[in-house]
């Protein structure tokens, strides 16, 4: 009986040891992969040639339930060249998608023009609402170059509601949610632009407190 228990214990130690060993050997690479993957997504919006800071480390977290769609802190990444602000990448949520939250990345040039928008994660219906995803259609690029004043407030809607942005056949709710979230982010950016670029990145410890 004792031997049986010991044997089970030995297997537990061996199994855990194997997993721990693999974890140690892959940890660094996995972290690097995740950073590179995220940086690739960021660079698709803000090309690496226009900034010279470490983009994914230069971030602040802000809160605005009304404009950024989440009660939780939302990250803003800042691109700078020679210390001067170039662009900000906001990570707001469109809370009114057809099924659940749509997480977005919105890159705004310092002057207030949109450089690009990407959907990071969504649960919209495949074949209908998922056209907001760059993997399915280039609809999301229709925001490029627009700003808060171009078009005017009435234009910041899908065509069905009298605006200038297409909806897709059979899906109005997902594009409508994205258009609204992009518009709100632009508003937030206009109201807080100076603060966005002047706040310093929190140290890891502050970040932890902020997340609670």
């Amino acid at each position, binding site marked *: 009986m004792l031997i*049986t228990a010991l*044997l*089970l214990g030995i*297997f*537990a130690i*061996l*199994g*855990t040891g*194997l*997993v721990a060993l*693999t*974890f140690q050997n*892959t940890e660094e*690479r*996995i972290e690097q*992969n*995740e950073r590179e*993957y995220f940086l690739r997504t960021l660079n698709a919006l803000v090309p690496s040639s226009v900034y010279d800071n470490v983009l994914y480390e230069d971030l602040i977290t802000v809160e605005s339930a009304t404009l950024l769609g989440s009660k939780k802190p939302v990250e803003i990444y800042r691109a700078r060249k020679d210390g001067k602000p170039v662009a900000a990448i906001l990570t707001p949520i469109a809370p009114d998608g057809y099924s659940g939250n749509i997480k977005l990345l919105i890159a705004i040039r310092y002057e207030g023009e949109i450089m690009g928008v990407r959907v990071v994660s969504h649960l919209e219906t*495949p*074949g*209908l609402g998922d056209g907001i995803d760059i993997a399915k259609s280039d609809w999301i690029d229709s925001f490029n170059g627009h700003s808060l004043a171009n078009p005017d407030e009435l234009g910041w809607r899908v065509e069905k509601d009298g605006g200038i942005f297409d909806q897709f056949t059979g899906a109005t709710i997902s594009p409508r949610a994205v258009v609204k979230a992009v518009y709100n982010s632009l508003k937030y950016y206009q109201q807080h632009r100076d603060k966005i670029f002047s706040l310093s990145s929190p140290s890891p410890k502050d970040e932890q407190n902020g997340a609670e």
Partner: protein
Amino acid sequence: MAQNEYSAIAQQGLWKNNPALVQILGLCPLLAVTSTVINGLALGLATMLTLVLSNVTVSLIRNFVSPEIRIPVFVLVIASIVTVIELAMHAYFHELYLILGIFIPLIVTNCAIIARAEAFASKNPVFPAFLDGLMMGLGFAAVLVVLGSMREVLGQGTLFANAHLLLGDIALGFEITVIEDYRGFLLAVLPPGAFIGLGILIALKNVIDSRLEKRRQPAPLISTEAKATAA
């Protein structure tokens, strides 16, 4: 062990006792990830690797693990192997890992793996256990690939989309557009399409089996069997 015993193991795994088509095990990943060939292939390979490693390990330790603790030990072995595979995939096939996501760790819960450990590997020497894992894994992977290609062609009109995520940059040009300007067929992409596709595959296998049976059996038996099916 005789040659024909090895071929019997192969036949069991690939066809007669195929984990997906006959034992209907591991349905959760089977139905969830087979939206493209490459997703199916990737999960199929990961499952096959798990089956081979777990069968070999279980066969190696079969003589000194007492019956009372064998199930917890098997679970430990399988869980460790799957976690190692998951970490390795995360490190070396990052984007594929993002697509397959939760279904890699869920290989642990694929009943086919513990079933083979318990029913075969714990009673047989290492080489047959290895062969059984390989063949069962191949059988499972084959179904994933076939179902994945059915759903990919019907659902989005392509084959081998995203092949470079699994096979590296050489595979960048592998994607074949089977149907030009295809608008997509939603049912094939969604989970119900997976159920229907698997149903068709199982039916197809049964049809082939009964044809083979008919050819082999003398005449009187056919009629009784035909009656039984008709009834």
